[in-house]
């Protein structure tokens, strides 16, 4: 192991070390003081975040080109670490209140985050697989964290079975790609695929990878697990899963497709087009009929995966690819910020035994808790893509990239499904403001803080999105 190897993986190494130590330290922390574990875990994330930020701008590869440190990995790692911190802020009071406060929770999330970070740095299919397992297995456990609650156990098992199935696709795809090119390194695959016409074996392998990642990011038709798992898991886990797992999935998809498979774009573009269109249509239309807020948000997260997938469609077009992938990253940020805020509000209203999760339970919220209702309205508008929110800028950027790539039809599907989505997001607003009711909420300082900070970010960043644009574009620029 050389020094470059070490520095390439420095933040990840720190995080894994912290997680292992914390696992032991947690044994000595008394049951009623698990707040200390939470604090130490957050501290580990913060330290890792500091190191990641300090590495912005540096580029290196390590372990014989199996992992890469570049602008792209730094960008996604920062996003993942921030999601982790937001996830902790949401979870802290929630776990206490639901009687789920156990030290493993924080440690499992740390391990999952290390998997996600490794995913963003992976430049070899073997590492992609390794990272995928590292990030998924803790999530399977977390989904079932509310045991012996049946719904939660069901969610864990379901997520595990379908997740394992998806991983199978990725492994099989990797094997076929290795068979076609004789290598698993992304740059190796790229040069092998660019010489002459790509073989059928390679195309099938790439398609299988797409299926596997499609499961992870919950793209239609591989989304069946999402509503049940999102609904059954403890809400704090859902919040983290719907953000973190998506970031990692898209990070891998972006890197693998952009660096290894440009030669296959003739075959894959149509598939990606159909996948994006289907995901937007099915996600948004199914969300309309949901009455449970967790299920509605699950379908909405499927729909947003569709919007992000749009950014991949022009990936074979060398001129458009950088801006389109940057647009995807930008949208990912806006989705993550809005998503955490929304789940924060959901957690504030949730009662024990799954009460307070119907959309009808939001009736009258605006009269009693105007600030919370205002925050939720901001999030809903951001999800619709309405000004003045980050979601609007994100969609503007994304649709522009897609049109520039020559797919105005897809952009039209995107805007029309946004219109459909307005209907169900507005229903939450209607309930909060225009119907009578008497909701009660849990006040908890970390929760309030998260909701407030994400709401303010959603609005404020929409007025000054330049630097985020710049960051996303530089992150992508280095990929090529």
């Amino acid at each position: 192991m050389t020094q470059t190897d070490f520095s390439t993986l420095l933040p990840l190494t720190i995080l894994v070390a912290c997680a292992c130590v914390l696992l032991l330290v947690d044994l000595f922390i008394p049951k009623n003081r698990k707040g200390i574990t939470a604090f130490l875990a957050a501290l580990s994330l913060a330290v890792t975040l500091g190191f990641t930020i300090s590495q912005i701008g540096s580029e290196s590869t390590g372990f014989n080109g199996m992992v890469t440190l570049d602008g792209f990995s730094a960008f996604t790692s920062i996003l993942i670490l921030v999601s982790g911190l937001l996830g902790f802020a949401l979870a802290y009071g929630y776990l206490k209140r639901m009687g789920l406060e156990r030290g493993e929770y924080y440690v499992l999330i740390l391990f999952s985050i290390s998997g996600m970070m490794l995913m963003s740095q992976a430049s070899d299919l073997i590492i992609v697989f390794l990272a995928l397992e590292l990030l998924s297995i803790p999530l399977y456990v977390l989904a079932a964290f509310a045991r012996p609650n049946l719904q939660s156990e069901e969610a864990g098992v379901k997520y595990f079975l379908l997740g394992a199935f998806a991983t199978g696709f990725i492994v099989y795809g990797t094997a076929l790609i290795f068979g076609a090119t004789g290598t698993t390194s992304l740059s190796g695959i790229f040069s092998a695929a660019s010489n002459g016409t790509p073989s059928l074996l390679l195309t099938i392998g790439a398609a299988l990878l797409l299926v596997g990642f499609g499961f992870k990011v919950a793209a239609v038709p591989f989304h069946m697990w999402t509503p049940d798992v999102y609904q059954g898991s403890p809400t704090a886990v859902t919040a983290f899963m719907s953000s973190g797992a998506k970031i990692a999935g898209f990070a891998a998809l972006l890197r693998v497709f952009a660096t290894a498979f440009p030669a296959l774009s003739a075959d894959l573009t149509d598939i990606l087009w159909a996948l994006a269109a289907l995901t937007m249509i099915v996600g948004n239309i199914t969300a309309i009929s949901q009455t449970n807020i967790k299920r509605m948000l699950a379908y909405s997260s499927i729909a947003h995966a569709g919007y992000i997938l749009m950014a991949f469609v022009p990936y074979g077009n060398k001129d458009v690819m950088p801006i389109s992938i940057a647009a995807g990253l930008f949208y990912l940020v806006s989705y993550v910020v809005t998503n955490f805020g929304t789940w924060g509000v959901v957690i504030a209203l949730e009662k024990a035994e799954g009460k307070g999760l119907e959309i009808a339970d939001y009736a009258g919220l605006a009269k009693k808790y105007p600030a919370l209702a205002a925050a939720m309205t901001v999030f809903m508008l951001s999800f619709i893509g309405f000004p003045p929110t980050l979601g609007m800028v994100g969609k503007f950027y994304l649709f522009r990239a897609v049109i520039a790539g020559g797919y105005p039809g897809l952009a039209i599907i995107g805007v029309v499904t946004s219109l459909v989505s307005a209907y169900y997001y507005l229903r939450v607003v209607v309930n909060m403001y225009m119907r009578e009711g008497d909701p009660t909420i849990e006040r908890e300082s970390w929760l309030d803080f998260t909701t407030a900070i994400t709401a303010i970010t959603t609005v404020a960043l929409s007025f000054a999105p330049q630097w985020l644009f710049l960051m996303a574009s530089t992150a992508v620029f280095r990929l090529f």
Partner: protein
Amino acid sequence: MEFLLQPLTLLTFFPLVGVLVILFMNSEAKTAIRWVAMATTLITFGISLWVLTLFTASNPNLQLDAKYPWIQVAGWNIYYYLAVDGLSILLVLLTAFLTPISILSTWTAVEDRVKDFMIFFLLLEVGMMGVFLAQDLFLFYIFWEFTLVPMYFLIGLWGGPRRIYAAIKFFLYTMAGSILMLVAILFLGIQTNTFNIPEMLTVLPGLYSSGTITAATQMLLFIAFAAAFAIKVPMWPLHSWLPDAHVEAPTAGSVILAGVLLKMGTYGFLRFNIQLFPNATIAAAPWIALLATIGIIYGAAVSYAQSDVKKLVAYSSVSHLGFVMLGMFALNVQGVSGAILQMINHGLSTGALFLLIGMVYEQTHTREIKVYGGLWKIMPIFGTVMLISSLSSMGLPGLNGFVGEFTILLGAFGSKAIGSPWYAGISAIGVIMAAVYILYMFQKMFLGPAGEITKEHELKDLNWREILTVAPLLILMFWIGLYPAPFFNLIAPAVEQLLSALPL
């Protein structure tokens, strides 16, 4: 500081000062909140008058630019760019003028959640000003969409019994139009590499003549923009959201909806469709004239059939805005200046009608025409004011409506773009029909024997506050009706320049 002190920036964003103050006030201090909102909008109106003094009427170009680079990365070329010209100056003044009047009208009508009401109302003013002043498509789109949010809440929270339905219908209907415009805006932005409208106007002719944007594509872009604006106007057959929204909206909401929000649609045609897509405009002119004519006749006929007086006025808007569209797509100086003036006229007369209906509704809580009757005897001031507003709405000479409609019909008769005097001829029947439904309504409600409601309630005539609310509108009705020259002078140079760019 220099950024904030630009007159147009100040005009657009000053209401936010009021929002901030109200935000920190106790929601029980209702009167204080009303005064803060009133003061804010009056100062905004003052700023708009200041802008008018700075405005050079003889200059046909955009003036008082507030222009700063905003998002200048990754191939984006977005400016924060506000400016005003002859096409928009009157609408800006109308917005600033109608907002304090609407707030005054809510003094006793809105008792519930006054704080929220005023916040949404002031936010709405920001959005409307922005729409009329933005000269960058991205900025314009933000303001355009943003106006939906406060209006949605105004209808949904303070509206009538079917308010939730009306609010959602309003939101989704209008959004349905603007999403296609979004795609067209992005397409233009990519082709011209800018979102700045004056810059775009210098690049576009080249793209048209070189065939980079074909005539067919230009037509599609025209249609995408037109869809957004036609829904807002609303043009027949896209008007079905309007009666619902008007009937359910609170009085102040109706006034702003009719007075300003609908004008955003007609203004959009003027500023964007005609300027950006000249060839498509000429090709589409007869078709728009056809739809406008149908709208004029249809709106008038349906108005006559209404039993709810607010619905009657709502449908009359469909008819009146048909005139605006007809004049605008006559594409000659009379037609277009008449159309701009008629936008203001409609804001004044329909605004006044909604205010007056609101005042009597506050006492009786019904809008059924047939239960009223003989109101004039009991409420003579109210009757007089209503008569003047009604006559203004139906276009009696000497009042503002006549000037606008007459100029529009004059323009439409001789229009080369429309190509046939028949549209104007048929539309003239609409003027007569307007007299029929307006006078029918007036007769049923104000003349004859006292109706059941009139007997049941001890109706009070207008008080000083209410007179003060409508008086400014009446003054302007007479002013424009008797001496419209200063208004035309503000519009004419910009209109001439707009039309000279068309390949007619």
